[in-house]
């Protein structure tokens, strides 16, 4: 197996920046459409749009490490730029899992890419997690001030569990659709374009 070179690291950095642009667009779109705590759908909406970016990473740098690096870099970027300080762990863990599946198993290419993309998309659940802790904090603050929490507890437990399930299901569904769209776009735009340099290692989806 060939080792990753400097130029591969640079290409990964560039694709990560583009992936992050998609995250930003998803964030802005959600703010327009779903008011309130819309960030729980950021991972799902990103997954819908970013399939093509993931496919290009998998195709242009078809070696173990690329996806792991991408997830880790996203995580660290989120961490120090303060977007979602908690999100670096899921980012790294999901990326490693997706990478292992993508590059160390022998399942059919199409299935492998789809499943690893779903796993990778879960890396963005960082923004969902604070909701969980916010709920706890809220109940704490009510208890501290001697409020009867039975009723509130019930309502919020429902809301948060519900939104977690909704968010997770949306990630799975949107990832599947997203990777399908990605494959279409790849055929439409990238199969004709012959890459230079890096592209030497590329192969078809």
């Amino acid at each position, binding site marked *: 197996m060939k080792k990753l070179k400097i*130029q591969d690291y640079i290409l990964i950095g560039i694709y990560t920046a583009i992936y992050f642009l998609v995250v930003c667009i998803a964030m802005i779109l959600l703010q327009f459409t779903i008011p309130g705590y819309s960030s729980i759908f950021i991972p799902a909406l990103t997954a819908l749009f970013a399939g093509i970016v993931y496919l290009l990473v998998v195709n242009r740098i078809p070696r173990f490490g690329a996806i792991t690096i991408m997830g880790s870099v996203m995580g660290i970027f989120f961490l120090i730029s303060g977007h979602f300080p908690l999100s670096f762990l899921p980012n790294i863990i999901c990326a490693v899992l997706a990478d292992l599946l993508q590059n160390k198993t022998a399942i059919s290419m199409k299935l492998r890419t789809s499943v690893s993309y779903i796993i990778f998309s879960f890396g963005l659940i960082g923004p969902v997690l604070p909701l969980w802790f916010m709920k706890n904090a809220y109940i704490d603050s009510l208890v501290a001030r001697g409020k009867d929490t039975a009723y509130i507890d019930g309502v919020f437990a429902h809301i948060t569990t519900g939104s977690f399930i909704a968010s997770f299901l949306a990630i799975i569904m949107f990832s599947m659709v997203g990777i399908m769209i990605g494959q279409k776009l790849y055929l*439409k*735009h990238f199969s*004709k*374009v*012959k890459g*230079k*340099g890096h592209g*030497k290692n590329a192969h078809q989806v």
Partner: protein
Amino acid sequence: MIDLKNIQFAYDEAPILKKLDLQVKAGECIVLCGKSGCGKSTLLRILNGLIPELYEGDLTGAGIVFNDDFFQKEFYDYVKEIGVVFQNPKTQFFTNDVYSELAFSLENYGVERQEMLERIQEITEQFSLTDLLEKSMFHLSGGQKQLVAFASACMLQHRLFILDEPSSNLDEATIGYLRAYLLQLKEQGMTIILSEHRLHYLTDVADHYFLMEEGMIRERYTAKEMLAKSSDEINQLGLRTLVLPTLEKMSQPDLSLQQEKKVVLSCEDMTFHYRKQKNSLVIPSLTLTNEYITGIVGHNGAGKSTFSKVISGLLKPKAGYLLFNQQKITPKQLIAESYVVMQDVNLQLFFETVEKEMTVNAKEVADFEQVVEMLNLSHLLERHPQTLSGGEKQRVAIATALLSGKQIIIFDEPTSGLDLVHMHEISETIKWLHQKNILVLVITHDQEFLEKTCHRILAFEQGEIIDDYFIKNK
């Protein structure tokens, strides 16, 4: 210093360099010139080691550079000896601020911090860049970026400098700095090899001109031989001018008879400023017509591109109004009449074939055949626009504008990095648009191109038009 023999190279089947020999003595300045695709850039990539380190291909040959066998070199040791400057200021910096950018190569070779600080001070003083030192790379103009790139190529003590069309994106003022930098290096006894289309600033820097053609060095001229040539001879070699033309002013020429249909765009008391900034554009009164091809000149940041965005309807003026054929027009209506061919034309092509690119949203479908023929696109219709060459992409963009019935077309630096042939080509295209009654504006700092193409010049400075005159068109 350099003695290479029988260099051959190919990316795939078609050879780019054929049995090329190159000898350069220490302290010489060699200018590689020739048409696009003649192999200049490839030769420079071989000399700076990026072939085969980054660009893979089939390289053979023999020879010596710096007294060592060139084909046995270790890449990272070898590049320590050379300073490299590339063409595009936007993609040749690697960190986010000037200070780190200058330190970058020193860091990579493990230079101690104290020594680095001294060297940074020395170089910034030498190149008068001290004011930029604390700035973010993103706040610099293209020209300033290129000067920083030059300085950062000088941080390590090199013996050889390799520059690939360093002036492509620069205005005349910045080219002046570039020339001064090159003279400094020459004085220090450095060996310089550079490829260039715009030759006029090199006349007192170059010792030899190597004319390349189809992967070989066809002719070697000394500076003296080159300067003795008449401008026609230079043009016949396919090269751009050695002597920068001065624009000859003249009184308003009468071209109005040529135009069957008039397009007039004027603005009154128009101002524009970005949020939290003072007025960045003030135009008391201006009338533009399709009788003249109008060139827009001025330094970076003089307000040229803001102006083009306002008069094409992309930005809404803060005060004043615009008239289109004597009728008041809103920015929204104006944008439907206008089109900007951007410097980075990649970002304005969206579809998967040239044909689809041209026909989506097309209003003037009847003109399709004619436009395809005039812009020489017929053999490209099935191609993906993004796989085309820069000039072809430009022509596709122009075609989309024509077919969607645009009457105002603005070009943003259409000639950066173009050789003589391609510059002529775009000049002819613009003249053809002019004949088709399109109101054409061209933002450019390419004087040779201005003289060939434009009738009227608007000079910008700090958001105002400081000069408005007609020139002799050659």
